[in-house]
Structures are given as C-alpha cells and as structure tokens.
C-alpha cells in the first residue's frame, strides 16, 4: 500500500543535506509552507540555496530561516515585503548571495526543470541588466534570452487537501508556485490543511498528481493572518 503520509516533522525532514537547493512555495505569506520551514530550521541543514518569490516578513517563516544564517544564496524575484528586516540586514552585510530573476522566468525555469527541459528562450529581460552574461538569440525577428532550468533537491509545498498517494488540491491564490515546485525537486515535501481518504478528491480538481509528491504532513492551522 502506498502511503506518503508521515506523522512527525522529523520524518518529513529526514535526509535533507547541507548544500541543498530548496524550492519554497508561496507568494508573500499565502501558500508559504511555514510549518515545513520551521521543520527545516529544526532539522539543521545548512549552506542552503533557497528559491522563493519573496524573502520573508518580520522574523517568521522564510525570514526565520534566513535569520539562522544557513542560507548561502536566495533566488528570488522580489526580496521585499512589508517588513523585510532580516533579508535586508543580511544582504547589506554581504552575508547572503542574491540572484534576482524575473518572476515569470523563475516560474518557467522551475516548470522546465520538472518537465525535463534544460533551457528555453524568453523575451523577458532582453536589453536589461538581467540579460548580462546570457545568450541572446534572434528568432523570427525578435530577440530572446536563453534561460536554464532551475531544479531543486527539495521542494517545500503547502496544499489544501491531500490523500495518501500525495494527490493535492490548493486553496485560491495559495496555489501560486506550489504545484510548479512540486514537479521540480528530487524530494517534494507537502504540508496540508486536510488529509482525505484516497478517492475522496475529485479527480477533476487534483492540481498536483501524487507522482510528484514524496511526503505529506498534516498541518491544520486555519487561515493565514498576514499576506
């Protein structure tokens, strides 16, 4: 019997190595798997590269992870939030490397990784500072940049519902990067508000089929109270 449901955070985090590339879902705080981030802090892996849209608010979630000093590099489109105190301090002190990626290019680089596409051309960022060092090619009269895929060793994902096969649904705009990241890592770990019986999820509504998912942890916490 396939059962991807784990019952402790330690099981969920087992085997994450130093130096891992960790994809973390969420847009702002919505859909950001804060319990798993806390679990990663507890687990203690260091020298991490984190791929996430934002860099954390205040001292919780992503910000708490950065504050441990175990993140060597962050790949991010918008390292600003209402209160990016932790990231800003690290960045000013030169204690964290920042790779700025246009948001859509970041999403597509992750999607490509999950889909077995090593690189793709996009018109985004042509002629800008973010084009520096990238191959530019003209196709049918328009200029494009070559962008490489962005695979993870680990993906931390927040779902709304999950079953024991790892099939997932999401809630409203909390979907964001989560289903994309779920496809792109060697180890995809999910926190979910609800666990349901196999067969209870409407197949038409499953946004992430369980093939992409390795571990599921039940974390019912209600509604996020910050954005």
């Amino acid at each position, binding site marked *: 019997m396939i059962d991807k449901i784990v019952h402790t955070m330690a099981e969920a985090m087992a085997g994450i190595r130093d130096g891992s590339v960790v994809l973390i879902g969420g847009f*702002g705080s919505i859909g950001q798997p804060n319990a798993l981030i806390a679990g990663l802090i507890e687990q203690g892996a260091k020298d991490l590269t984190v791929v996430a849209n934002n860099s954390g608010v205040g001292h919780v979630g992503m910000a708490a992870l950065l504050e441990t000093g175990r993140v060597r590099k962050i790949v991010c489109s918008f390292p600003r939030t209402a209160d990016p105190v932790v990231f800003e301090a690290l960045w000013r002190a030169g204690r964290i490397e920042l790779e700025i990626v246009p948001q*859509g290019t970041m999403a*597509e680089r992750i999607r490509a990784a999950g889909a077995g596409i090593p690189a793709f051309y996009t018109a985004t960022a042509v002629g800008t500072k973010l084009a520096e060092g990238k191959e530019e090619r003209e196709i049918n009269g328009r200029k494009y940049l070559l962008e490489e895929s962005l695979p993870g060793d680990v993906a931390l994902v927040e779902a709304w519902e999950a079953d024991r096969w790892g099939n997932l649904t999401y809630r409203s705009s909390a979907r964001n990067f989560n289903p994309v990241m779920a496809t792109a890592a060697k180890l995809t770990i999910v926190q979910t508000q609800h666990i349901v019986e196999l067969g209870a999820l409407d197949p038409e509504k499953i946004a992430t089929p369980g093939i992409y998912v390795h571990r599921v942890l039940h974390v019912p916490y209600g509604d996020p109270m910050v954005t």
Partner: protein
Amino acid sequence: MLSACTPLTRREIAARLARDIPEGWYVNLGIGAPLQVADYVPAEREVIFQSENGVLGMGPAPEPDKINRWLINAGKQYVTLRSGGSYMHHADSFALIRGGHLDLCVLGAFQVAENGDIANWTTAENDAAPAVGGAMDLAAGARQLWVLMEQQTKTGESRLVRRCSYPLTAIGCVKRVYTNLAVLDVTDQGFAVREMVQGLTLEALQQVTDAPLHMMKK
C-alpha cells in the same frame, strides 16, 4: 504655463486611463497606482483583470467581514474573484503573460523613453536590495503596455526622456503614457500628444518634458 491648468491627481489619471479600456479586454494592472484603474471600470463593462499570482477575473477588495484570507493580488492585498474567475499556478499565469494573451498591461514607471523603453524596477543602486517582480515579464509579454505616471518627478525632472538613464525593465514596449498632464502615444517619430489637460499648451508641456513632443495627427 503650467499654472494655467490643473494637473490630474493619481486617481484622476487612473480614471482617465480606465475610459480607454474596452469591454472584453484581459488586463494586468501593476502594483501601486495602476491597481486603482480597476475602480474606474464599471462592473457592467466586462473587463477581466489578471493578477500574476494566479488569479484571472479578479474583483474589488472584499467587505471586511467577507475576506478570503487565501486570495490576494500581486500587491498582496485581499481581493475577490468575480463570477467566471479562475485560479492557476504561477507557470501558467506567466505563460499567458509571456504568450501574448493579455490585451493590456498597465505599469507605473520612473522613466519612459521616446523609443518605448521603460525603466520601473529598483536595483541595488538605490538604498534597498534589488527587486523586479513580474514587471519584465509583463512589459515584454503583454500585447500592449501602457504606463501611468506623473509627467515629472517630485523634484521636477522629466519622466519622459530621450533615453532612460535608470535601469531598463524592457526595451521598446510602451505604447501609451497617461500622466497628470497629458496622454501620449509612443510612435516611430517619438512621443505624440493625444490630449492634454484643459488650459495646457504643447509649448508649456514641452517645457517640463525632456523628450521632444509633437501633436498627434488627427
């Protein structure tokens, strides 16, 4: 003379721009001032707003007691979903942007050049860390890019320039600019003034604008 006219407020610029969005268009509004455009598109005119965090068919802010705490826009404000709206993941959301399916994107900007270049992102030269978000994808991907901004900075520098001095967001993408003083098209001959606020002359507008201006041919 500028003193002979009353410049539009940010909200009035948003309202002016909203008048030009026809029914049936799919539109992304950038964070900040462009988001106000939605307030001036009447509900009976069906314009479908996209938010790049995976919301198509975004509606207005919710009543305080009806907030869905899982539903925000790109500016991380609570929003609603209209009937007929849908959710998608980030790669699909930007695929529709990159794929040229949006009729229009409206962004704010620091500068727009007469060749349609736009500079609207903050790099490390400013005080804070750089941040680009989805602006480069939106500028390059939408079928048309309109910019909503003031004609001048707070210190009186022209935002309409011959060439951008700030870091570029995208090259040659801007089609139209709505400012507190005028509506201008980006043409092969540079900025063409479509209209000006009442009492303003082309000469007075030119005095506060670095890039050369001409009246649009009727």
